[in-house]
């Protein structure tokens, strides 16, 4: 019996909470609220995901009331932790403006900071996101910074005051899964602040594989919302996240290029 073996009695406390800027969350899955066919499906999917953190976008009120209404008509802000994002911002000035407006809504001082650089790929602007992080951190924001899977940018973001780093698995809405496990692993290994992989997770095995890299959590939207059955996929994602987390904590076996029998070689019949 080795010291690291979890006894069955410990199964109810399999993992420490995810703690970001002093705030603890039980779930390591964060979800978006966009692209759902209906508010009812969104509510059910978020419920099934087990997520506590939900991200929302900052937009003009539609004065014709022809399309959107406040997401707060469908998401109870006393039950979920609202993480406003700066999606759609292509400059430091815009991202800072959107973050300040989001904070003025009065829920919290957190922001999922996006400074996008390219419309075709939606890849982040690494220089812009570092600059915006510095501005917002100085204003007391808790910045979770969306970035690419580059270690040096992640280190710069931590230096700039981000409380969490959100490297992409693959481009936003692509569903291509975790394209560079090595890069994500390296970022997690080197950073002191939590690493939440954000964007590109397409199905439960992507979520599991991402968590197996040792990261602290995953944020996703399209992977659930664009599934044929979002509620079922949300359930699968929850299990994928938990399976990947437990597999990481358990520590996988060493890979071998040769087979090793699982049954004894000895005791074969004569």
């Amino acid at each position: 019996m080795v010291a690291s073996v979890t006894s069955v009695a410990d199964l109810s406390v399999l993992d420490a909470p995810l703690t970001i800027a002093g705030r603890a969350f039980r779930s390591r899955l964060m979800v978006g609220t966009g692209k759902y066919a209906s508010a009812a499906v969104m509510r059910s999917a978020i419920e099934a995901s087990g997520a506590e953190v939900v991200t929302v976008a900052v937009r003009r009120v539609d004065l014709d009331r022809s399309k959107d209404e406040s997401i707060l008509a469908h998401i109870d802000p006393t039950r979920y932790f609202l993480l406003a994002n700066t999606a759609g911002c292509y400059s430091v000035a815009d991202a800072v403006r959107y973050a300040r407006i989001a904070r003025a809504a009065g829920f919290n001082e957190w922001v999922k900071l996006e400074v996008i650089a390219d419309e075709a790929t939606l890849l982040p602007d690494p220089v812009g996101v570092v600059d915006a992080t510095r501005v917002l951190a100085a204003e007391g924001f808790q910045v979770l910074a969306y970035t690419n899977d580059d270690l040096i940018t992640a280190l710069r973001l931590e230096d700039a005051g981000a409380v969490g780093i959100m490297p992409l698995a693959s481009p936003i809405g692509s569903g291509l899964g975790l394209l560079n496990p090595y890069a994500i692993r390296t970022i997690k290994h080197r950073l002191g602040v939590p690493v939440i992989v954000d964007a590109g997770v397409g199905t439960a095995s992507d979520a599991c594989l991402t968590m197996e890299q040792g990261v602290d959590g995953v944020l996703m939207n399209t992977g659930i919302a664009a599934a044929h059955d979002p509620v079922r996929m949300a359930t699968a994602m929850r299990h994928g996240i938990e399976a990947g987390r437990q597999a990481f904590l358990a520590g996988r076996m060493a890979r071998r290029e040769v087979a090793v029998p699982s049954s004894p070689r000895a005791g074969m019949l004569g």
Partner: protein
Amino acid sequence: MTPSNIHESTAGAEPAPGAWTALPDGSAAAVVPTVNGRPQSLAAGATVADLLRTLDLDPRMIVVEHNGEILRHDVTRSQRMLRTGDVVELVHFVGGG
């Protein structure tokens, strides 16, 4: 300033070109700030709080940016008067990822 000073908004209807400078009773609008990118006719002396009432918006769900300044408090909103040329953004949270 009381709500009775405020004329009904034409928001939602498709105004004829140029018609937005007139209030529904035919009188000339006293002030025409730009609200979420389009002209909004209001009576003279209208405040941000009056604007929200005119548009039938729940003030608790809305963040107001007036000429680039975020107006946090109800008191500020009820005191801040709007003028022609002002730029107002009424913002809220929507679904996103």
